[in-house]
Each structure stands twice: as structure tokens, then as C-alpha cells.
């Protein structure tokens, strides 16, 4: 068991090393002749207008909020799903209630227009 996590740790380090080595090696051998024109923003050849980092479309944020609810749901349901075979009928009833609450939340968000792209 511990060995498995050791393996994953080492694999994580190796996965970091691959792009770092790649980018580092390319940095050593690639030409470096930057000029202002090259370093300008590429937006189809036009000069960029205004700031890029502006406050932008709250819609994405609302989706992220709805997502947070459902992602927690999946985290809660996974242990339930693993143990499901060994649990009694009450496990099914519990989850019907749990999913019912979540479905209500989804229906509420839907009704409120949180899922409408306008």
C-alpha cells in the first residue's frame, strides 16, 4: 500500500521533470531574438484594444457555483456506491432523498435562469 503511494509520488516528480527538462533544454538551444513586434499580442494582426484582464461574464461564475454543489455530491456518493452491495434497502432510500434534494437545487437553478446563456 505504502509502496503504491511512493510510486505515485515518484511518478508525480517525474511528470514535473518531463516538461521542465523539455522547456529547459529548448531554452538552451533555441534562438533568442525577441523584438517588440514579435512580443506583441497575437490577435489576428490588429493592435490589441483595451485591457485584457477585465471583469468578464458572470455566467461562467454561476456555472462554477452550480458545479461546486454537484462535485461535492459525487465525492459523497462514491463511498456509498462502493459499499452499496453490503448496505440494506435503507441505503437506497437515503440516496433517493439525497438526490431529491440535489434535483430540487438543480430545478431551482434552472427555474431561476442560472442555466440560461444570455
Amino acid at each position, binding site marked *: 500500500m505504502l509502496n503504491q503511494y511512493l510510486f505515485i509520488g515518484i511518478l508525480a516528480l517525474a511528470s*514535473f521533470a518531463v*516538461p521542465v527538462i523539455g522547456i529547459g533544454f529548448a531554452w538552451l538551444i533555441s534562438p533568442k531574438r*525577441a523584438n517588440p513586434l514579435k512580443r506583441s499580442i497575437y490577435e489576428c494582426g490588429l493592435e490589441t484594444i483595451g485591457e485584457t484582464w477585465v471583469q468578464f461574464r458572470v455566467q461562467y461564475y454561476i*456555472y462554477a457555483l452550480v458545479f461546486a454543489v*454537484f462535485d461535492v455530491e459525487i465525492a459523497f456518493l*462514491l463511498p456509498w456506491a462502493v459499499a452499496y452491495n453490503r448496505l440494506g434497502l435503507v441505503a437506497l432510500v437515503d440516496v433517493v432523498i439525497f438526490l431529491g434534494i440535489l434535483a430540487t437545487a438543480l430545478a431551482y437553478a434552472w427555474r431561476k435562469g442560472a442555466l440560461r*446563456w444570455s
Partner: protein
Amino acid sequence: MDLESIFPRLQEIIAQWLSSFLPGWLAELLVILMVVLAIVLMMVVVVMVLTLLERKILGRLQDRIGPNRVGPYGVIQPVADTLKLLFKEDIVPEKADKLLHLLAPIIIVVPALMVWAVMPFGKKLVAADLNIAVLYVIALGSVTSIAILMAGWGSGNKYSLLGGFRAVAQLFSYEVPMGLAVLSVVMAAGSMSLQSIVKAQSPLPFAFVQPIAFLIYFICGVAEVNRSPFDLPEAESEIIAGYHIEYTGVKFAMFFLAEYINTFAVSAMVVTLFLGGWKGPILPSYVWFFIKVAIVVYVFFWLRASFPRLRIDQLLNFAWKFLVPLGMVNLLVTGIVVKLNVPVWLTVPAYWAGNFVIGVIALYLLTRFTPKKTPVSLR
């Protein structure tokens, strides 16, 4: 010696040889490093093969030949591409957030490679058979979206930013139904370890037992790796190339690498969870695994040649208003079937009946309530 256990045996022999002249912990560490190296190298080779195959297959599907200049049938095209990308100048835009711009291509590769730790390549061929493998894969999937947002934001380009936002909205939205589809598999198998899930798929793979979960997972898989028809985050014709516009050379290659590894990983997950993993007659198990994964990858390429791109509102609506409710209902039906206590030979027909009823109702609702006219989407 049979072909099945050739790789574990090889590892054993090397471990014995190493421990004959090295202290035990060092030998063990070296063996782990060897496996890690094998995984990384395999993935690099897989990406090279996939880039060539994608261009070849796409070419054929579009009545072209595809690359055929470098080497016979263009087989060393990927090597030429790699060399070219390696020697390219690295351009960092003036307005970029330098740190994020540098970190994004590094971080995006990490989850792509780490997924392979838990993937069962064969009957005896899995690096770390974690008992929470499914959760591990889902968790790594969401790291990708952080890297993409970093790239989109850090480039300081408006199109990149749009691509980044789209990617995050899409990955988030499709992660939920994906998780729900995985849940019904976990429930039927009673375990989160991928090896046990593969073993639980007898006599029929889960794709034939729970077709709806399979379809949900497959669609979400296509969306998770930003492939066409869900390639909005990197739509060339609307937002140039999305989050990786401002990347050149090796940094761009890293995005490419991660994308292809992820495509391969999602195909491998589809195979492992739904198509019986490494199971198959006669041939060794790892050969079967790669055959099945190759078929799924081919379907991915095929989809790219066949379907037009969606709009962002269609994409999000499809996830939240169709796939999520469908996934929840499917989960409940799976739960009921598991608890029905029917005799063994009736389990599969019970699943079929449940899936058939949900499928018919879902299709009816889909055709009934799909708006004929949708508002013109903005971004």
C-alpha cells in the same frame, strides 16, 4: 514462460539482479524509477504515433492522403515535428503574466502522465492498483482545467482568455455527468479499484449492461479532452486557437503532448470501465487492452471528421439540462436493479429493461423540448 507474465517476470529478474549488489531500498527505488521511465517513454511514443495517425486518418476521411513526405508513408513525420518544435524560438508576449505563462505548460503535463499509475494495462500489469483509483482519475481530471485557465489568463490575450473560460466551463459541466456515470459502474462492481472493475465485467462488459452510463461517459470523455465536436476552447475559426495561441516551441508541444495523452487516457478509461479492459481470448491481455483503446481512439478521430462544432450555450445546456438529470436517473435505476435481488441470470435483462425505459423517455424529452430556435450566442 507464458506471454502473460513476461513483464512482471522481467521486473522480478531486474530487481533480483539489482539487489545482488545494492542495498535493498536503493534497488527497490531503482525498480520504481524504471517503471516510471517506462510509463513516460511509452506515453511519448504513444503521442508521436497518435499525432501521425490522427493526420493520416483525418486525411483519409476527408479524401486526402495526409502526411507522406518524411519517410515511407510519412512515418517519421512526428520526429520531424518534434525537432522543429524543439528548435523554435520561445516567445513570451509582453503583456503576459510571465510566471503563469511558464507554469501552465508544465502543470498541464503532470495530471496527464500521473493518470497512468493506476491504469490496468493487463492482467498483471498495473503500476499501482489503488483502491481509490476512480477518485484519483476524476481528481486528476480537474487539475487540467486549472492549467488551461492559467494558460488562458496568463497569456494576456483576449482570445486565450475566452478559450480559458470556455475550457473551464466545459470541463466543469461535463465532469458532473461523467462522475454520475462512473458512480453506476462503481456501484455495479462494488469497488473503486480499476483492476476489480475490470474483473467484475463478466460475462458481459458494462457497456452492454449499462449502455446509458456508457454513452454518458463517452460523450463526457470527448468533452473532457476538448476534442471535436466539443473543441470550443481551442476553436481555430472563432478564437484562433484558444488558450495556447501565445505559446511557441516546446511550450506549445507540452500542450499538444498533454492533449494527446489525455485522449489516450480517456479512451483507456472508457475501455477499462465499460469495454472489459484487458479481457479477451487467446492474445495476451495487454495486447487486447491496446487493441480496444486503439478502436476507441479511432472513434474519437472519426467524430472529429464527422461533426460540426457546438455553440457554448448548446454545450452547457446539453450537459446541465440533459446529461446531469439523465445521469441521476440512471444512478437511481442502477441502485434499484442492484437491490432488486433477482436471480443472477435475470440481472442483465433487468439492467436492459431499466436502461431501455430511461433511454426512450430521455430521447422523447430531448426531441420534444429541444428548442427549434436558440438565441444567437455571443461568446
